[in-house]
């Protein structure tokens, strides 16, 4: 049983991606028996390249895939370089996980309500400072250059990269490295950048590639914040794919392949950039520059991270205001009155999506947790077979969702599987498992082996040791991993929409569906719900160990 766990895990990670990619290639060259096309041709490609504004769409995706990781990484690195254990640092470290839990769509809506011409920030300065009596005629949300979309992506990817970096850092013993460099006369920030950053970078390279793939192919954030005419490539692919005219699916498949090429191009550009920066770094290090720019770097890191964290936090606040706002004329900073009306009017449509969301996220997280625990326990018991294929875990994150999920839909249609909630759950597992594994594995492997040795020498079987010793000691981490898994599942838009064939509404699909033309107040209700479910997960993950171990001091300290 246990020995099959890593195999199942590997198949679940690679299988759907490989299958989906293969099955999107055929329709891209004209072969799709389901719609009566069984002759290979290059027509889909010709159609794709003659679609209006296609170059601009592709370019937007590529630029977003590069600008987002560059800014996010720069801010994270500069912040880490300046970390000194101050109150601000500790606050930000504590906010990382909850901010990560906010689904992308909810954060995007919050940001939109914050910075739109009629948004909260404009209201705060109006009319006193700006003189605006009416929302200014500015193109902020859905701007044609995609700047707002990239800003939204940057703020949302910063917590992710920060968490990955914070998890990797202890292995590098940054304190000693910095101390050594400082004793050679380097100012603190430079000391960190020269001695810790080069060692940290390779450890967060895979997560960075995941950010590149995500930013170049994201759908929900692009629908909410991204440009409209033309939209990013991924949004247009989704449009063609969902079109009632089934023949557009061939062009959509060609688009999916183009999406993979765009994301790969972004990665390739990143690799070139990496080389250049590496060279500059070495040159800079070799010059022995010890003092210059220290203050500027320190301040820009702090400002960057603070702005990002404040934008995300303010997004949640603005969503809350909108969800309870009564009449709210433009220049007024706050609504004239508060009301439950938006919640009451949504109640009738609320039950199914909320129930679906809970069922899907809880089931997929449970499956992920069992598989990941079984894989890790297997490697502990049979030492040799350590699950090291990290790239396999990253596969669903490195390949654009739009590209392989269409292939999967083609597959399920060929197999005449009914789209529905089970297919959605299975699809979510593919994205939940990597996060659960990455959160749990390090702590699991690092647990002092003497605990297990002691328990076994006292006569406990391996199974008893797992249930009575290892699992309770690691309960806190397992619950956190589950909360993260749940948050990932709740935030999934594309797999839910496509594998459920639009018939499995969740809070996320409902929220995104309202993006064009929905009332702000109703959108806010859905987006808040979308954030509340993962938040509840995180609160439980923190509260359960505290309650359970309230009389066990050593467990409290580790939690």
């Amino acid at each position, binding site marked *: 049983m246990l020995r099959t766990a890593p195999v199942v895990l590997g198949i679940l990670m690679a299988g759907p991606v490989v299958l989906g990619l293969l099955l999107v290639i055929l329709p891209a060259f004209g072969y799709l028996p389901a719609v009566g096309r069984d002759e290979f041709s290059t027509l889909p490609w010709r159609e794709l390249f003659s679609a209006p504004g296609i170059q601009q769409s592709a370019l937007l995706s590529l630029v977003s895939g590069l600008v987002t990781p560059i800014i996010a990484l720069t801010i994270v690195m500069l912040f880490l370089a300046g970390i000194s254990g101050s109150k601000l640092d500790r606050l930000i470290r504590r906010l990382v996980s909850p901010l990560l839990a906010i689904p992308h769509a909810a954060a995007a809506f919050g940001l939109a309500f914050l910075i739109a011409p009629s948004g909260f920030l404009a209201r705060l300065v109006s009319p006193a400072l700006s003189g605006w009596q009416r929302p200014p005629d500015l193109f902020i949300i859905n701007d044609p250059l995609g700047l707002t979309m990239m800003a939204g992506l940057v703020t949302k990817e910063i917590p992710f990269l920060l968490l990955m970096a914070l998890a990797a850092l202890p292995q590098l013993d940054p304190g000693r490295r910095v101390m050594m460099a400082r004793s050679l006369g380097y100012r603190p920030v430079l000391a960190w950048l020269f001695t810790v950053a080069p060692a940290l970078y390779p450890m967060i390279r895979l997560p960075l590639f995941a950010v590149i793939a995500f930013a170049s192919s994201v759908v929900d954030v692009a629908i909410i914040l991204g440009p409209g005419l033309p939209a990013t490539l991924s949004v247009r692919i989704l449009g063609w794919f969902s079109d009632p005219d089934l023949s557009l699916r061939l062009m959509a498949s060609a688009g999916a392949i183009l999406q993979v090429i765009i994301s790969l191009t972004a990665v390739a550009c990143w690799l070139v950039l990496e080389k250049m920066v590496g060279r500059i770094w070495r040159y800079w290090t070799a010059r022995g520059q010890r003092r210059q720019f220290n203050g500027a770097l320190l301040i820009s890191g702090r400002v960057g991270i603070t702005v990002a964290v404040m934008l995300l936090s303010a997004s949640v606040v603005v969503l809350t205001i909108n969800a309870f706002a009564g009449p709210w004329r433009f220049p007024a900073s706050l609504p004239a009155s508060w009301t439950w009306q938006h919640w009451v009017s949504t109640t009738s449509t609320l039950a199914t999506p909320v129930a679906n969301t809970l069922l899907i996220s809880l089931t997929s997280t449970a499956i992920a947790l069992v598989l990941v625990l079984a894989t890790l326990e297997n490697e502990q018991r049979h*030492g*040799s077979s350590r699950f090291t294929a990290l790239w396999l875990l990253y596969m669903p994150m490195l390949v654009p969702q739009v590209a392989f999920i269409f292939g999967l839909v083609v597959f399920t249609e060929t197999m005449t599987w009914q789209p529905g909630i089970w297919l959605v759950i299975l699809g979510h597992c593919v994205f939940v498992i990597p996060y659960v594994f990455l959160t749990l594995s390090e702590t699991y492997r690092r647990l002092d*082996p*003497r*605990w297990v*040795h*002691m*328990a*076994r*020498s*006292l*006569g*406990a*079987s*391996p199974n008893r040791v797992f249930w*009575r*010793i290892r699992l*309770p*000691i690691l*309960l806190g981490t397992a619950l956190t991993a589950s909360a993260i898994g749940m948050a990932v599942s709740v935030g999934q838009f594309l797999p839910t929409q496509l594998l459920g064939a639009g018939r499995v509404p969740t809070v996320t699909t409902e929220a995104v569906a309202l993006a064009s033309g929905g009332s702000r107040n109703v959108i806010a209700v859905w987006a808040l719900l979308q954030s509340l479910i993962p938040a509840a997960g995180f609160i439980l993950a923190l509260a359960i160990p505290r309650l359970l*171990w309230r*009389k*066990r*001091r*050593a*467990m409290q300290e*580790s939690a």
Partner: protein
Amino acid sequence: MSEHYLELRDLKLTLAGRTLIHVNTVVRGGEVLTVMGPSGSGKSTLLAAIAGFLPAAFTMQGEVWLDGTRIDPVPAEQRGVGLLFQDPLLFPHMSVGGNLRFAMPSGEQDKTARLKAQLDEMNLGGFSDRDPATLSGGQKARVALLRLLLSQPRAVLLDEPFSKLDTHLRNDIRRQVFTRLTQAALPCLLVTHDAEDAAAAGGQVIEL
């Protein structure tokens, strides 16, 4: 009760072709065999091999016999070999009583009554519901010893069990441990780099 005895028959541990340890000896019930050597000499590996936790990098030749039965092919939990480390390693999520119950064989009658009697005898009366984290160093060491005894081992391996204790506690705990182990007539294997431990154990000494 028949006497326990631990036999190491031509036991050889190698790491990447290099022999670390080669022993061929018998430890009788109530005797302590002390293995002394600098760190990295493989003395802890010897204990791991006997207890059944040899890291994959090492290879073991020879056989381990306990009370006339060969135990080296047997899973660790069925060997009847108890361990005492330098840290007491009381399971942090269980109470003192929970730790002790975890060690008691499942078929046993009157667990609660026996537990109470044993705790009283160890000067730990009323400690059953305590959180191990709130105990003093000496108390923790005594609970660890009691837990070991309650698991009814047929041999005991001690890995520098006193090295983390304060000097004034060390003699006290050392005396208690050896008294109880000799009383129970258990064959013991002690690994240490402290000559005082070896002297207090009073048995045969192997220097690596």
